[in-house]
């Protein structure tokens, strides 16, 4: 079942086109990463999907509803972790969650939401005394309060330590396994690669690539690298190779085949390719390849 449908979405501020004809779908139970450099249009897209802003063009449906016209219905089924939103600094974490429970239909108990976000031990701490990462976890607790069918996570782990980040990833995976559709924006490409089943990369408001994570990565340039054998230059090799920091580097769509050819070439000449590495493109390489620079 499709939870989020976006078709030819457009939004401008004055003369600046923040989102230009973006289209994608997110299925129930899917974690979808929306990536792009600063100002690429990620947050604007999330805010359009959550109904905070009205699109200038195109169509958005969340659980079949228009997020602007049916805002209440959409919001009641969604959890939204905004990139920026305020707290009341003099309330404790527990008081904050308890207050928000009054605004959320069928809310989880406050303790459950805090435990889920890994903030149980800080329940009695005032918000002003929480670290940046702990405030982010409080954000997460509020986003999870209403047992959402769709979860928007805009930079969810900013400021978190590695343990908290891992715990948050597990929470997100568990929610998706229970059928929640998750739209994730993040600058941590490792996070996107760890969590997401599919992705879209935005650049200057336009979608530059999208699809399943594995297929999209497979479509990017893989690489074969090894230490430069003594007396051998890049021009001697049978494939296009560059010399980078004392290592030969071959970028190719099919790194397995390239490795076979290079090893065969070396064996025929009695050479050994020391430190041989063969791998498909990482998300970071793909990201840089398509024009982003996170």
């Amino acid at each position, binding site marked *: 079942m499709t939870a989020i449908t976006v078709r030819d979405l457009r939004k401008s*501020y004055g003369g600046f086109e923040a989102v230009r004809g973006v289209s994608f779908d997110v299925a129930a139970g899917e974690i979808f990463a929306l990536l792009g450099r600063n100002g690429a249009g990620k947050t604007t897209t999330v805010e359009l999907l959550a109904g*905070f802003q009205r699109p200038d063009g195109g169509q958005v449906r969340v659980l079949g509803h228009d997020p602007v016209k049916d805002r*209440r219905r959409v*919001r*009641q089924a969604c959890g939204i972790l905004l990139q*920026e939103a305020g*707290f*009341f600094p003099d309330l404790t974490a527990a008081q904050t969650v308890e*207050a928000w429970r009054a605004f959320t239909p069928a809310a989880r108990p406050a303790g459950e939401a805090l435990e889920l976000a890994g903030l149980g031990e800080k329940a009695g701490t005032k918000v002003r005394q929480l670290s940046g990462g702990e405030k982010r976890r409080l954000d997460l607790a509020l986003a999870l309060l*209403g047992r959402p069918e769709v979860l928007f996570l805009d930079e969810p782990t900013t400021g978190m330590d590695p343990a908290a980040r891992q715990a948050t990833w597990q929470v997100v995976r568990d929610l998706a396994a229970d059928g929640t559709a998750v739209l994730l924006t993040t600058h941590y490409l490792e996070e996107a690669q760890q969590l997401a089943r599919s992705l879209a990369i935005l650049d200057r408001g336009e979608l530059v690539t999208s699809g399943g994570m594995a297929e999209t990565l497979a479509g990017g340039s893989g690489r074969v690298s090894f230490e430069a054998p003594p007396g051998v230059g890049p021009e001697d090799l049978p494939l296009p190779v560059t010399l980078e920091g004392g290592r030969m580097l071959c970028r190719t769509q099919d790194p397995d085949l390239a490795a076979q050819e290079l090893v065969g070439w070396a064996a025929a000449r009695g050479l050994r390719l020391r430190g041989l590495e063969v791998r498909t493109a990482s998300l970071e390489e793909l990201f840089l390849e398509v024009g982003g620079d996170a």
Partner: protein
Amino acid sequence: MRETVAVARFGARLLWRDKVALSTSVALSLGLGIFLPLMMHKLGVSGGLRVHLGLLAMIVTISAFQQTVITLTARRDQLILKRMRATGLGDGAILAGEIVNVAAQALAVMLAITATLLLAGVIEPPAQPVLVVLILALGALALAVLGAAYTLAVPRAELAAVLAMPFFLLGGVGAGGFGPLTELLPGWITQVLHWLPNVAFADLLEQAHTGAGGYLPPLARLAVFVAVAVLAIRLRFRWEPRRT
């Protein structure tokens, strides 16, 4: 309705935790509304009912109008309104809850002032006591709604109190809170001040206190302001700080 009450209760809880808001909105209002008339009464220079009503016009401006402007601009600039909108709450429930909370606090303050001055014999018992209470409630709500609309003109929360202050002073002059200053002013200024919503509120109260019964003109003046404010809120209310 349940949502509006939830927001109003939450706002009340926050107000009572906020010592600065309490001192400006509640303590200042009580001080101005009770101790000034009491002192004047003891000195034998009591300005009578019109000064009391003029002071109430100033107090409703501080405790309902200005407090709404301060609360909503602070919540807007701190992105708390945005966070509230991220819940299942409707926009109307969020605004109505904030307005009802501030109006209820303002009503409580004005009732306390009126009751104290009655008990102290500074003012005479009103001819229409139930109507007085209703008009106090109506005025508090109306001024809070006007405060919500006025946030459109307030660029940043730090300017909220300063930009609301002229209405406090003009209301005080126009409604007689500073004494019969309007008698010293040119007629056209008095006419302009006469149109202020807090002055219309004082005029309505005067009718209920004296039992004169000319409610319609001041009620119409107040209603025009409220209608324009509601329209402005519906069309242009800013939930977030300006992006540019």
